[in-house]
């Protein structure tokens, strides 16, 4: 078994936190993990890409080969589109429906969404709406981690435990918000899969 993920977003959106949850969940599930992160200059509001590889066997390298990603998980619609060469017809794309506009030439959102909907296994997530419902807009990345969960080779409980662990030193209120956000994302994805499959 191997499962390769491209995590995309903009610096500051919590891409790495989402990655940490999947990594920790995967370890609990007995998988091997390699996760490549971006630090330094690129984090300042720029496009951020993280390669996350899970496998039952040793993983030789940190980077996902082209055409072999099982999933793009993107915090932002435009950012998901950058990495289509990593996809094949059986891949999935789980992506926020809300743009992060910090550049003057951001294309019209409808055009971006139209292009996204043509991608295989596309699931758009109202992460902001669900995060607000969970108690804080800042939990949008947790919603997206939850929305990716049904597709991952990791039991939901292991991921939820990892989400709890990540929030633990931020106080019980944040822990509760993050847990709700994760679960709302999970439910939304399950509804979504029924529609798309």
């Amino acid at each position, binding site marked *: 078994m191997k499962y390769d993920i491209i995590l995309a977003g*903009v*610096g500051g959106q919590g891409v790495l936190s989402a990655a940490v949850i999947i*990594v*920790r969940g995967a*370890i609990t599930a007995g998988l*091997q*993990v*390699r*996760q*490549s*992160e*971006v*630090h*330094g*200059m*690129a*984090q*300042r*509001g*720029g*496009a951020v890409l993280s390669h996350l590889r899970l496998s039952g066997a040793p*993983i*030789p*390298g*940190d*980077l*996902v*080969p*082209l*055409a*072999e*990603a099982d999933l793009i998980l993107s915090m932002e619609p*435009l*950012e998901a*589109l*950058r990495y*289509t*060469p*990593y*996809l*094949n*017809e059986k891949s999935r794309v789980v992506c926020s429906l809300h743009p992060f506009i*910090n*550049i003057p*030439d*951001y*294309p019209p959102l409808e055009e971006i969404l139209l*292009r996204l909907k043509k*991608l*295989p296994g596309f699931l758009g997530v109202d992460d902001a709406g669900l995060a607000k419902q969970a108690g804080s807009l800042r939990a949008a990345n947790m919603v997206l981690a939850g929305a990716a969960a049904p597709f991952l080779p990791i039991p939901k409980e292991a991921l939820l435990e990892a989400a709890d662990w990540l929030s633990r030193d931020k106080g019980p209120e944040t822990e509760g918000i993050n847990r709700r956000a994760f679960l709302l994302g999970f439910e939304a994805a399950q509804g979504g899969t029924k529609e798309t499959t």
Partner: protein
Amino acid sequence: MNQLILLGDEALALAALDGGLSCAYGYPGTPSTEIMEYLEKAQAGRGILARWCSNEKTAYEAALGVSLAGRRTLVTMKHVGLNVAADPFINSALLGIHGGLVLAVADDPGMHSSQDEQDSRFYADFAKIPCLEPRNHQEIYDMTRLAFQLSEQFKVPVMVRMVTRLAHSRAALIPREAEEQRRVSKAPDPRQWMLLPALARQNLAALLESRREFSAFTAAYPGNDLRLTGAEWGVITTGLGGNYFEENLEELSRLAGTPSWLHINAYPVPVEKIRLLAASVKRLVIIEEGEPFVERYLRGLLEIPLSLAGKLTGEVPLIGELNPDNIRPALGLPNRRGLPPESGLPNRPPQLCQGCPHGDSYQALNQARQGFPQSLVTSDIGCYALGASPPYSAIETIVCMGASIGMARGAAEAGFYPVAAVLGDSTFLHSGITALVDAVQAGADMTLLILDNSTVAMTGWQETILPSEKLESLILGLGVDPAHFHKILPLKKNLEENTGIIRKEMEYHGLSVILSVRECIVAAKRRPKGKA
């Protein structure tokens, strides 16, 4: 199983801790920064000392002192930082290293966060010291522990070369039993620590003699792994090149048979293993993360009966990072075809944060420049380098830490007017002070703008080596005229006032220094409440 999930940098730090480290020094620089950050957090519990220094040179010299006192030491920096530390580094190869000294240097192929791609293996070779190059987390751990041992065995510094992808990758490793710290004991022979010409000549001869021992070590080291298959062609990989080759190996074996393979991870290059491989094949492909270091050795200047394919012949990309796909042409594998790329997507480059004090400083500087028919602004390395991009487009040069001041002085002395130099507080303390002394002495006609955000922001908000309040007395102490020294507060509401001050000082024919002080907004948010 005692498995830990760590960043590559953290794996290196842990290995140093477990290897009996006493003191670690460094200067922050992507992708090396997290080594010291891990040690800083661990230091209280493990009874060690981990300190950021003014620059890589002072860090390296502190490490030399630890070795002289008989204890194990680690010094960390990014690849271009080694340029700054090159003087003590190269000379230290001639010393009788006492406590193990390991230099962890992190290269940045692909220039994710750097101004060049220089491959530090050339530096190790230049200094004539051993270099170890891990390609996964267990190797980082094991080879860093080994590096301390080799350093004491051979009495030279040992380099561990990291690269961005490894430094910033998270994966598992299994640590081993930790060693005790060494006791303090002065190096026995001062002749091995005084590089007077007469002594240095002897030490150089001794180093060249030791180099045979290094070579004997790398020849026998199992990490330099040769697998002969009897195929007519072979592959030599180094660093992460080995990982990407392995990624393709199954497919390659299925389609074209398994080539012979030598992976090199310890230098000096294992000559015998290379000769054994070369004797068994007609064609060699060389895949190296970084510059064509081994490949240049192999090619030399004279014709050889072997066909070599690599970076120098274009089969492997000469610049940028390797990946599992861009090495496939060299292996004769077809390109993997994913979905087509989406066209016409705008780039999203990094930029100054909303509300960043640098933005306000640059706005004032840009307005001040409008009063002159022409002007020149030199700058430097740090978050403020993002002022090169729109909407500011405020700076015109970025070369190396501290260069802005010296370059402004030179441009002014060449006759250009007006010239301003812009750099941050940490860059100023790293390499700007000496250049400012020069400018004061020369009475250079230039305006220096120090953007003091009270942190080393770009690399992750490390503490600046001197607190903000000490900068003013430092600058005035260098001999800057107090009448042409100003402290400004970069805020929107002060824009006109700040513009006026900068313009007035640019009009002045002499040296002016303007200290623009406001804390980085991200650092302020991260600071524990109540701590100034």
